């Protein structure tokens, strides 16, 4: 049991936050998604989403590209290879933990 708990403390703390985990999960299924879509899906305020995206970008998990589509500003986010590997490792870790504690 102690080792199970110890393995849980080893999870990626950056991804072990519900909003950030959902953001990365969404980005893992698409090539890219914009700020509006992520905000609708996560129900976060603009400020909160912005803060989470900045943290993920600083960790090298996502890339953010600011551009325009017609007359609308567009903030495109995409998962990097590092982010994809981190997300897979995180999910694997959680699965292992759930399996061990069944």
């Amino acid at each position, binding site marked *: 049991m102690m080792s199970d708990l110890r393995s849980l403390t080893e999870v990626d703390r950056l991804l072990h936050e*519900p909003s950030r*985990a*959902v953001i990365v*999960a*969404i980005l*893992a*299924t*698409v*090539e*890219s*998604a*914009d*700020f*509006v*879509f*992520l*905000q*609708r*899906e996560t129900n976060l305020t*603009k400020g909160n*989403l*912005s803060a989470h995206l900045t943290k993920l970008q600083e960790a090298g998990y996502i890339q953010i590209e600011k551009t325009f*589509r*017609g*007359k*609308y*500003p*567009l*903030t*495109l986010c995409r998962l990097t290879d590092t982010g994809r590997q981190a997300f897979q490792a995180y*999910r694997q870790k959680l699965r292992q933990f759930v399996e061990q504690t069944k």
Partner: protein
Amino acid sequence: MVTDPLQQAQQRTLRYWYVDGTFELSIGGMCLLLAAYFYAEILLADSWLSNIMFVFFLLIMIGGGFLINRLVMMLKEHVTFPRTGYVSFAHPTGARQWKRMLLLSAFSAFLAALIVFLILNSQAGFDWTTTVTGLIFSAVLVFLAWRFRLLRFLAYAVLSVGLGVVLGFANWPHNFGLVLYYGALGLSMLLAGAVILGNYLRQNPAPAEASHDE
């Protein structure tokens, strides 16, 4: 049943392509093109054009599909993405892309062979071509319903089977059953697409220009 919230978020994201009814509009358009093709085939049965009708079929399948895809993309760019966000879906590359192309080619060849076999060996009393077309179409719709957890696709599948069976019993001559099948399915899909698009537009008003995102 997906209970993992991360999987739920991923499932919702995959469903996003189908949220605005443009998929139904594109399939409906394609079905109407096919109905027009089979009708033209009947009208031109005695003409020299009947020998090259398969060229038009290929044109509809490739050119029509391409044009309808462009139209849907344009609609999404101007209507859907400004309202509920832009998403670019990942396309398979490398081995996965080849595997998918091979599977699609094998499936298309099987369908073409089956339809030709049914047309050549049709027996009096029942129009198997239309019924089998309805069953195949419904199988694809059931797969989409299961893959993306979209219940309305099951309703389309039931409609497709129903039309196929009813028109099979009606047994119209000269593939007229296919004209009616694609015509009825196409109109139903267009109607469903228009209703879904209308609801989507009502629920998601256009955003103010400057406040679009952060």
